[in-house]
């Protein structure tokens, strides 16, 4: 299958300031791709290059099989800008109707249904909308024409938790119908539960693209075991993948790197009364990427 987004050597400089350096990336049909990085890392630059808002300094990108300069293809893209500006006395409903017309027609019923799901009031002049309500209008206009590719730049900013849940459901529905989502965030927690893969961008470079399930498997997790009687510490010494082992009486704490198999087998010799295994903290891995590869990256750069 052809990639929905295919960027090759995509580079953008703003004058001498680097926005994005040599991005090569493929986003496959039907996946949710989380695009992660701190503010100013190059996420928005990438997204605006895909949409032809800005032009690359070098390299090229194809979106839905077309060059980014081809305007017609944008009817099949839904875009939520990172800094959505909605102004004026115009009512949100009229603005959405206008956007729908230009994109080739959107049934009014679909707009209303989305507004209801997100609990958005479309009768208010846009300048009177709060940040969260503007974001809802932004989501409606991105989803309403059922685009093949959704590009969402920091989509959850300003949304309350209930609406965030509804939004994530909508994103999953898009994937279920075989369509593709690219969403950026500076917080992994926002995207890890829906994303199939995450790309991590830092200081203008893509430092890693990881499968979320694989990332989770690789992750360190903290494990706590309680036994019915004190256990000898030696029984758990030198197990593969077990670190930071602390045995205190009938309790055991450690962190596991990778699979918990060895620990489980060692523990099976005793009577386990309680087992706690924390969800792997992807945020931690994420930060590891930044601190380790990030530092290497900096060292390679000419001063």
């Amino acid at each position: 299958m052809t990639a929905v987004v295919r960027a090759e050597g995509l580079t953008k400089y703003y004058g001498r300031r680097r926005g994005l350096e040599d991005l090569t990336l493929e986003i496959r049909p039907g996946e949710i791709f989380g695009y992660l990085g701190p503010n100013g890392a190059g996420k928005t630059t990438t997204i605006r290059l895909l949409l032809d808002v800005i032009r690359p300094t070098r390299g090229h990108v194809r979106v839905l099989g077309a060059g980014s300069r081809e305007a017609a293809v944008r009817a099949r893209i839904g875009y939520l800008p990172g800094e959505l500006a909605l102004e004026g006395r115009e009512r949100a409903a009229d603005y959405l109707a206008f956007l729908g017309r230009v994109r080739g027609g959107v049934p009014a019923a679909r707009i209303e249904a989305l507004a209801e799901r997100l609990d958005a009031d479309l009768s208010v002049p846009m300048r009177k909308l709060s940040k969260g309500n503007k974001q809802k209008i932004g989501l409606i206009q991105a989803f309403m024409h059922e685009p093949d590719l959704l590009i969402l730049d920091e989509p959850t900013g300003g949304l309350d938790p209930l609406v965030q849940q509804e939004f994530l459901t909508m994103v999953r529905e898009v994937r279920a119908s075989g369509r593709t989502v690219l969403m950026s965030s500076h917080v992994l927690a926002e995207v890890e539960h829906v994303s199939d893969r995450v790309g991590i961008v830092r200081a203008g470079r893509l430092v890693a693209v990881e499968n979320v399930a694989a990332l989770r498997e690789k992750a360190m997790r903290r494990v706590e075991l309680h036994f019915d009687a004190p256990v000898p510490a030696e029984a758990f010494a030198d197990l593969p993948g077990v670190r930071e082992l602390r045995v205190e009486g009938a309790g055991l704490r450690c962190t596991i790197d990778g699979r918990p198999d060895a620990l489980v087998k060692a523990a099976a010799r005793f009577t386990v009364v309680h087992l706690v295994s924390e969800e792997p903290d992807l945020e931690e891995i994420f930060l590891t990427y930044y601190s380790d590869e990030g530092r290497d990256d900096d060292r390679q750069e000419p001063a």
Partner: protein
Amino acid sequence: MIAKSLREFRRSLIWWTIGISAFMAMYLSIYPNISGNPDLYGAQALAKFPGALRDLMGGLQDMTSGLGYLQSVVYQLFVPMLFTVCAMLIANRAIAQPEEAGTLELVVTLPVDRRRLLLQRFAAFALGLLAVAVITLLVTWALAESVALGVGLDRLVAAHTGVYLVGLFFGSVTLAAGAASGRRAPSLALGGVWAVLGYVVVTVGQNVEAIAWLKWISPFHYYATGRPLYQGLPAGDYLVLAGAIAVLVLTAVLAFDRRDIGV
């Protein structure tokens, strides 16, 4: 897109129409006082004005006749300037203002070619300004009839067309600068400085040899020298203006098409 742009411009278009009409009403309604007092406003009285000021007001000949009055107080300076300011402010709302506000970002990601987008925004601006011109023309005509100014509709149309073209010209300057830079204040400044200097050159500057040649790049030259109110529509001069506007719009299209938006 054109209809949507016009909706954005609507309120300011309405206010400008009201403002210019009010200006017309105020000045034309005092015409009977002036024509009735030739001692105060006649040629001898006006000759006492300093020469430079007279030049700036287009010579101030003959305030007591309908034509002279209309030319001096309405079509010489004030109405073209009002139109110019109105045009520049509205033209700025086509690209530069929404770009600075951030609302243009979503619009350029619509499935509309950049060049087409710019032409549609320009068309909306030109149509909006035309509406202001037509309505204020009708208001002027009605007022002129009511105070028995004695100026035919054809001459009013000739002068008003010139005013419209001058406005459109400076609006296009602002639009082109905005399309190329995405910045509101410099675009407005460029149009404003060009307008003021252009006006000075064809009035006070016409006797100063060093700068008199600059009149060729002043749109006021093509508007005023034909004396549309006295002699009817100066087709050649107006075609020059229209051609200049076309060049400006083309420049705007090319500049906008190759630029990064909102950086």
